């Protein structure tokens, strides 16, 4: 029992919970869930979903390894290198997660089971595909029963996708405020009026929101309850219709500043970029990292270098939804395992969320990683956002053991552009001060000028303690 700790976010479902022992994630199944778990296995549903890569595989361990006594089984699921949150996903990733959930529901119905929840947090990238990670999400299908998770599916997937597609891609960030998905009445208000006339969004968002309002006062009344159930055919039709509605939502086509940065908008020219690549490559090759976060990754060019250098998991963070979406589609198309393109505004990083701030981990709580790449980033933090260099250094130290960071001086054309429309109130933004502030947090191991530019690359190691 020693060295085991229950994962704080795993408490809602009485069927079991997740705990960690010596850094390995385990899942304990409660005795009350035994019939459902046995049905999942004996019906062949588990094997089907695992072979289709729709469900995270697991192995059964000795029950004596349980966290507590009332355990029926202990599972060791395939270990995920990184857990992301839905508000960090691009449009395509959320859409794929929605379609994955519906495929699983369809397969479950054929085997006499149904999904009892449809949380976007239960889907993660595994082997470069979205997969359900919660083995305890299955319940017996009772003839006539409606889908208990219908509302949750609409809130977690349909409403945010519709808002991102039809109103503004940034509305995916509503997930940060609403941990159980976007309320349908809010989505209904924010969607364009004409979406009321579509059979997909008109029914599943607008009319659904109205029905919720209408029946909210009657929840305990028998009159509010339907006199008959829903046939399995009707259930399947509902799933198909949801699927078609999701498929009809297209990725927003806004042009953003960073979408073609390396192709048309960069500051280096090809020689400078190649030189920078060579330097980063040689730094990573000297001591290959296991886990990497690339902050301001754009299309993931340097993240892929890190993967090529042997990193098991690379998270490519960027603020631009188009860059992240393009990178995600590339990951899926080329089955790039261990590469996770995600959305992040580093000046307002993902916070700890949910009950007691412990249900969903903050950015820093999901670290530290072996290496953080901060290339072409420091001027955006220090000049565009007025973050003092000392604070950048202190925060980076909480994220990583080693840091590859690019110094971008005031002579650089990009910094000049940033300062063109505002007074230069940054007398401290000089290389000597940068080195001094970072030396308080890191030991500088290497310093290399990038050929053909006025920039410098540093390799640093976090100071102990």
């Amino acid at each position, binding site marked *: 029992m020693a060295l085991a700790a229950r994962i704080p976010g795993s408490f809602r479902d009485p069927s079991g919970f997740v705990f960690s022992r010596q850094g390995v994630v385990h899942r304990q199944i409660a005795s009350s869930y035994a019939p459902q778990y046995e049905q999942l296995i004996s019906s062949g549903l588990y094997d089907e979903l695992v072979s289709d890569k729709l469900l995270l595989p697991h192995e059964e361990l000795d029950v004596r390894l349980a966290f507590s006594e009332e355990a029926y089984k202990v599972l060791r699921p395939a270990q995920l290198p990184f857990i992301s949150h839905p508000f960090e996903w691009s449009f395509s990733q959320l859409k794929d997660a929605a379609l994955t959930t519906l495929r699983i529901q369809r397969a479950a119905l054929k085997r006499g089971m149904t999904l009892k929840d449809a949380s976007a947090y239960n889907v993660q990238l595994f082997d470069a595909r979205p997969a359900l990670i919660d083995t305890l999400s299955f319940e017996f299908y009772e003839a006539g029963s409606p889908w208990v998770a*219908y509302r949750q599916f*609409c809130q977690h997937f349909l409403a945010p996708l519709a808002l991102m597609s039809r109103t503004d891609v940034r509305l995916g960030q509503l997930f940060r405020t609403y941990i159980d998905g976007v309320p349908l009445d809010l989505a209904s208000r924010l969607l364009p009026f004409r979406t009321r006339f579509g059979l997909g*969004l*008109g029914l599943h968002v607008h009319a659904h929101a109205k029905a919720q309002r209408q029946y909210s006062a009657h929840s305990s009344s028998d009159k509010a309850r339907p006199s008959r159930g*829903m046939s399995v055919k009707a259930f399947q039709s509902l799933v198909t219709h949801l699927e*078609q509605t999701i498929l*009809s939502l297209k990725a927003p086509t806004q042009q953003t500043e960073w979408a073609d940065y390396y192709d048309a908008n960069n500051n280096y020219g090809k020689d400078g970029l190649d030189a920078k690549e060579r330097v980063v490559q040689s730094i990573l090759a000297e001591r290959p990292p296991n886990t990497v976060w690339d902050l301001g990754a754009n299309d993931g060019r340097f993240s892929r270098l890190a993967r090529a250098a042997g990193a098991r998991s690379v998270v490519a963070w960027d603020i631009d939804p188009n860059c992240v979406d393009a990178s995600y589609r590339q990951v899926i198309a080329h089955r790039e395992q261990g590469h996770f393109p995600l959305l992040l505004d580093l000046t307002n990083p993902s916070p700890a969320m949910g009950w007691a701030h412990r249900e969903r981990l903050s950015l820093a709580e999901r670290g530290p990683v072996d290496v953080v790449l901060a290339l072409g980033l420091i001027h955006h933090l220090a000049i565009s956002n007025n973050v003092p260099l000392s604070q950048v250094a202190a925060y980076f130290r909480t994220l990583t053991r080693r840091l590859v960071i690019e110094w971008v001086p005031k002579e650089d054309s*990009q910094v000049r*552009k940033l300062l063109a429309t505002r007074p230069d109130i940054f007398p401290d933004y000089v290389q000597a001060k940068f080195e001094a502030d970072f030396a308080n947090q890191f030991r500088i191991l290497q310093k290399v000028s990038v050929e053909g530019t006025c920039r410098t690359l540093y390799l640093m190691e976090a100071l102990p303690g």
Partner: protein
Amino acid sequence: MDMNLFVLGYLDAGTGSLIFQILVASLVSAGVVFGGAMTQLRSFFSRVILRRRPEEQSVGESPLSSDQGESPLSSDQPVIVLHVEKTPESVTHRKAA
């Protein structure tokens, strides 16, 4: 069927959502049946017409439409025009390189 007999699990499914989905599922299911019947009818009459006027077969298109079997309630596509917004600069104002 009494709602109390349903397996509700640990989630609050919401009374409005449960009732509403039963209605929607019936509607969608009826749409599938109706769509299927329409396709059968269209196919039947196409065959009858083609038998009477076989010369049209070589000129006209296939009697079965490409959306054969699709539910009339199948998608938003015919009704909703994709709404495209220009990206506000605030999405990316922080970065210049």
